């Protein structure tokens, strides 16, 4: 398993939507590679016939009655939004607009 290059670290940071400084990228490159070395140990174990575990307690689907229950009050929820107006959360435009 080859290590993470600087550009790999930058790529992963972009996937994760983390804006990192040059110093952070440098530090993380070293630390992540050190942690990835610990992962290499897992290659020792043959697991071809082993099913993966995502859930430890054996629960089958549990269904509930399809009834309407109250939701959180909109005004209380919007109080946490950094920018809200008219009962909506305001976000920057994500589509190219008419003013370009």
């Amino acid at each position, binding site marked *: 398993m080859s290590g993470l290059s600087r550009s790999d670290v930058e790529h992963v940071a972009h996937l994760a*939507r*983390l*804006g990192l400084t040059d110093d952070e990228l440098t530090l*993380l490159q070293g630390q992540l590679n050190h942690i990835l070395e610990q*992962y290499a140990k*897992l290659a020792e174990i043959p697991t071809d016939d082993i*099913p993966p575990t995502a859930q*430890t*307690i054996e629960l089958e689907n*549990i269904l509930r009655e399809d009834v309407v229950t109250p939701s959180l009050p909109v005004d209380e929820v919007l109080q946490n939004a950094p920018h809200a107006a008219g009962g909506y959360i305001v976000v920057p435009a994500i589509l190219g607009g008419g003013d370009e």
Partner: protein
Amino acid sequence: MTADLTRLKAHEMADRLRAGEVTSRELTEAHLDAAKAGNHALNAWLTVDRDEALREADAADARLRAGEPAAHPLLGIPVALKDLISVRGGQCTAGSRILEGYISPFDAHITERLRDAGAVILGKTNMDEFAMGSSNEHSAYGPVANPWDLETVPGGSSGGSAVAVAAFHAPLSIGTDTGGSIRQPAALTGIVGMKPTYGRVSRYGIVAFASSLDQIGPFARDVRDAAALLHAIAGRDERDSTSAPVPVPDELLRLPSGIDEAAVGLRGKRLGLPKEYFVAGMEPDARRRIEEAVAALEGAGATVEEVSLPHTDYGLATYYIVAPAEASANLARYDGIRFGPRLGDGDVMGNYLATRGRGFGPEVKRRIMLGTYALSAGYYDAFYVKAQKVRTLIKRDFDTLFEQGFDALVAPTSPSVAFRFGAKMADPVAMYLSDACTLPVNMAGLPGISIPCGLSEGMPVGLQLIGPAWSEPRLFQLARAYEALTADAPWRDQEPAQLALTADPGQPTPAERASALARA
């Protein structure tokens, strides 16, 4: 008088409340005063809501006066909550800047359950950011000091909840445990802490870290108190689809009070001692405390056999793929759109990068990076699927032993006692090893409890008991038996060695101590 009230166990408080010898308001005031006086030197609390706590105490006193026949033992008892549990109208930072200013518009399931029981919520406790850490040094709101030695950490991530109980600011508190975050700080601060079976307690209304591993559980200074707190918060809640429809046993409220009666609980029990949990690098004196505890268990009629959990050594690597992968997905919601500060002044992408880049601390970023990488195209099978398969093997190790008839496993909770501020901050892998004895239990979804078993060079050592799924009553009975056996041990009544110092407002804060140590 005030100081005396904080020294009582929760069940002793409950007896006095029912006898009319004390009111919930008096108990609450005593603990609020202790928290206020001690927080400068400990930093265990992020918020204390005195007015609201006193309102809840008065309501509890009214219920006590009315004499509700089916009242829960927690009626009128103060409790502290880790600051990732939603309490309507209050902050819920999860120890992060990215949730600064967030006000929860609803109560978590366990908050509702505590209100139903009549417990008094004193406030919210400090924690490692998003519960990621083993020392509480990764809180955006500063480190927490351990009252046994103010230059050492209390463990983490539920460090504030552990210290609130160890320092007599509250008789009970709530933590969460994803890889050891209840049991390890309980061990390092000399108290009782339990991680219940996955699915025992609803996670509705707690800030998610790793959803297949997270469980909520109790801290207390006494086994019976911890069991009563679990009883109050456990049970099916349809808002958490992983909360199991398994009845909550009332045995949790009926653990034996008498010493002899309790110690009988060990007679004929078959316990396994997993040799892999005595990891290389374990402190020899801490190891001796565990060996002494094992001898005491045998002396009371249990048989203890050395056993093997052969995949233990792969636990760390497995956990540090599964947990960061789940975290990287869970923490995608912190994007500055719906809650928390929104940073950046550019386009949507620029805002995301700035909000998340500046809002998360170093450990959280490290884990998001690890998880994103492990889930990314081309690596998903090699890392994430591989880890889930090894997780199956780790779980089978435990299943095999319990199928052979072992009642429980006995192990150290932590390879070391509390360490100094800064000791493991430069090396993430060294920090991760703090949870080597606890995280396999989360991987397998099992219940585990840490109970104090003595001191090593003046610092607390924790004994861990691990049982099969849904065996919490048995684990509490075994823990109560050990507690009874050691009731007269000299370390039992010893208060944290530097607790008295925390009343002095001239003492440095934990952050000041940590930076002084970093300079030294």
